[in-house]
């Protein structure tokens, strides 16, 4: 069932057998393989949804916003890889439809949604970032560092949104708001568990 874990174990065993790595470092390499495989699968999911939904650029924008914020803010994580991929696929689909729906709204509603999304995310970052997971315990210096990073990434996306509006790429604002809202929702779900 857990194909990612099995593949990582298999690859690490091969490295041990060929004496490329030391047995005591096995866990570290399994961890690295799990991250790599999961990132590849997630990238395939985003690209597939983007191509099937005829919105590859918008999904790419979503990918960059989602990835950069989740890295430093944290949020909900599923218990297994199968649930993770299923939920990520669902997240991408929600982003696609919500972004498209919002993009058809008039500029006042779009601006209001964007402001609301930024305010919600800003509040969550201020209150909780970074949200720690039991599988990755952070030291106090890491917590401080990631908190600063999450605030910097947030400011970067605020500036990007302003630039998008200034260059009249209003079409992407709907996708922008949806991506910010999804990151916020995952943060709230994790805090409410």
């Amino acid at each position, binding site marked *: 069932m857990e194909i990612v874990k099995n593949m990582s174990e298999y*690859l*690490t065993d*091969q*490295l041990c057998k*060929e004496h*490329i*790595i030391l047995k*005591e470092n096995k*866990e*570290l*390499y*399994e*961890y*690295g*393989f*799990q*991250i*790599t495989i*999961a*990132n590849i699968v*997630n990238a395939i999911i985003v690209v597939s949804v983007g191509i099937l939904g005829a919105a590859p650029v918008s999904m790419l924008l979503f990918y960059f916003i*989602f*990835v950069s914020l*989740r*890295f*430093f*803010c*944290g*949020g*909900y*994580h*599923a*218990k*297994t*890889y199968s*649930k*993770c*991929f299923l*939920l*990520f696929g669902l*997240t991408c689909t929600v982003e696609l439809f919500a972004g498209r729906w919002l993009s058809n709204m008039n500029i006042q509603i779009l601006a209001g949604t964007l402001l609301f999304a930024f305010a919600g995310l800003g509040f969550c970052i201020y209150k909780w*970032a*970074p*949200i*720690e*997971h039991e*599988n*990755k*315990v*952070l030291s106090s210096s*890491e*917590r401080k560092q*990631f908190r600063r*990073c*999450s605030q910097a990434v947030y400011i970067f996306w605020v500036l990007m949104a302003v630039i998008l509006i200034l260059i009249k790429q209003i079409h992407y604002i709907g996708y922008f708001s949806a991506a910010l809202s999804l990151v916020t929702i*995952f943060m709230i779900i994790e805090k409410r568990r």
Partner: protein
Amino acid sequence: MKNKRWLKLLAKISENAAKRADGRASEFGIYQPQKPKRHQEQ
């Protein structure tokens, strides 16, 4: 021999992924793999 070269490349990719993961609070995917305990203490 060729196989060993590929495995070395895979080892490097995995090592880099684990190192890069240290520079962030969480994985962006909806699953957070368990960080190795020995590595966590360092």
